[in-house]
């Protein structure tokens, strides 16, 4: 797992749900596909049903210019579909920052080691704007807004969550224990 992530941010509000992140109509796309191909398959549908008040997450070529999502409360509420993490990861997201995450979404991020679900000390969705360049240093719990010259902090990961992330996910973590 990367410790330092630098890139443009995409900012959304509270309760961004998994139906917005990857609509139910696309969940069949993983049939007959090797696991390694999952992110490539799902990335082009990422955030397709997000409220149209937000700027497009993907450009016309279905590429995502962002590496970091900054969200309000309860990011990832709704379904347990891990397709949500896979779609975001496939689109190029390397970290999601939010004051709170829906629990199943949070666990899926950790157990699949898709990206660190980073809990910010405060809600940054009003302080950071889409397109701001951020530098996130996980180990130092720092969220630096390079564009605005501001610095914020994140909460530490629980030890177990950190160990699973560091192992590369629950599968690798379990394989080392067996």
């Amino acid at each position, binding site marked *: 797992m990367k410790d330092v992530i630098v890139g443009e941010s995409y900012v959304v509000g509270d309760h961004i749900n998994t139906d917005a992140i990857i*609509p139910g109509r696309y969940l*069949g796309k993983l*049939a007959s596909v090797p696991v390694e191909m999952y992110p490539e398959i799902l990335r082009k549908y990422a955030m*397709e049903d997000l409220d149209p008040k937000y700027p497009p997450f993907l450009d016309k070529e279905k590429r995502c210019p962002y590496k970091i999502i900054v969200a309000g409360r*309860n990011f990832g509420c709704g379904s*347990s579909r891990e397709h949500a993490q896979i779609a975001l990861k496939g689109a190029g997201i390397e970290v999601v920052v939010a004051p709170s995450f829906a629990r199943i979404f949070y666990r899926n991020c950790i*157990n699949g080691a898709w990206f660190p679900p980073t809990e910010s000390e405060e809600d940054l969705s009003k302080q950071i704007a889409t397109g701001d360049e951020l530098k996130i240093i996980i180990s130092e719990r720092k969220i630096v807004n390079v564009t605005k010259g501001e610095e914020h902090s994140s909460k530490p990961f*629980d030890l*177990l969550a950190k160990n699973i992330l560091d192992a590369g*996910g629950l599968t690798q973590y379990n394989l080392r224990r067996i």
Partner: protein
Amino acid sequence: MEMTITEKTLARGAGRKYVKPGEFVDVDIDILGMNDVTSTGAIKLLRKYFNNQIAEDLNIVVTPDHYDHRDIDSAELYKELMGFCEEHRDHKKMWVYPLGENYGICHVMLPQEGHVRPGDIIVGGDSHTCTYGALGAFSTGIGTTEVGNVLATGKLWFKVPESLKIIIKGENPENIMAKDIFLHVVGNIGVDGALYQAMEWEGRPINELNIDEKLTLTNLDIEAGAKSGIIQPDEKVFEYLEGRLKLPLDDSRLVYSDPNAKYASVLEYDISDLPPLVAKPYLPSNVVPASELENVRIDQAFIGSCTGAKAYDLEVAAEILKGNKKARHVRLIVSPATQKIYKEVMQNKLGKIFLDAGAVIWPPGCGACLGAYMGVLASGEVCISSTNRNFRGRMGHRESKVFLASPMTVAASAVKGYIRGAEL
């Protein structure tokens, strides 16, 4: 130390005497639920990393219910899951419910087929797995990586959740259902009001609910962000389980909350004057009385899913539709939750009531609820639905709208063509 029912159950699963909220535990999983749409990655994971070996003592219930042959992709998902079951047919603790005379939506199938016991620890690849708390089990939804690892190890880590006690008081009004009780609470606390907590329901109106209604109440708890939902098992639960259970009851697992157990908070609601409620788009917490929405014209009324098409749900809906016709402009869809319920409907007077009301009766499945197939909405269309989510795009086009209500309110609305609570 005094504990809640949830803490005691997780302590038992972890082989510990005592656990407290915030602690991490590794627990033995009693039952794993697998469906067609979230299992594919788990099956591949088991093959690739764990030599295709399933943990010996793990009970597995397989219910292909989400996609059901709507297209080639979904047919492949079904085929893969059934192939997996066939490959592991020597695993004695696997129950499979393929498309046929006994299949249906997982959260109705597991209780119906006697897989849920009080005190069990149940996980499944679907967020509404929290349903089984209605029978006194700890149950929660998990992702595909977790399904794969539970298959391999029979265990899963948890952070012990705090419990949130919800006390319901007063008299159950006749034109409301468990759905309305939940909508009232989530309207008050919000979709993250119980974030990572175990919602523990109690009070006389809760005890008076029948099992189908209790299942609705705990199913919906994820919509308040809860980890799990639970109602302490009473006599009615044990009557329901009688003659139904696939595995014997284990009295040592029967636990109840201690009188001085600690709760994150205790909330009380009196429902005596509760009117029929509706959650407007695009959050289940966006709740108003149905009476405020009487000029909302509907295109579709959907009576189906794990919160709206159990036997009792359909009896109540039929009571409203009896002798009535749906409004001309409305598509009224009834989709019984399991094939056993479907058979009951078709072979008794309910089927005639639905057909005479102008409904189409569709087979069991999750498709409509998640906008996968059957009842998919076009842009600008409005659906009143007995399902559990109304996020943007949930049942179809992202410019469609879903209003959540009880099966009773959905039936009453279908007749009017506009949103209406039932008048009894």
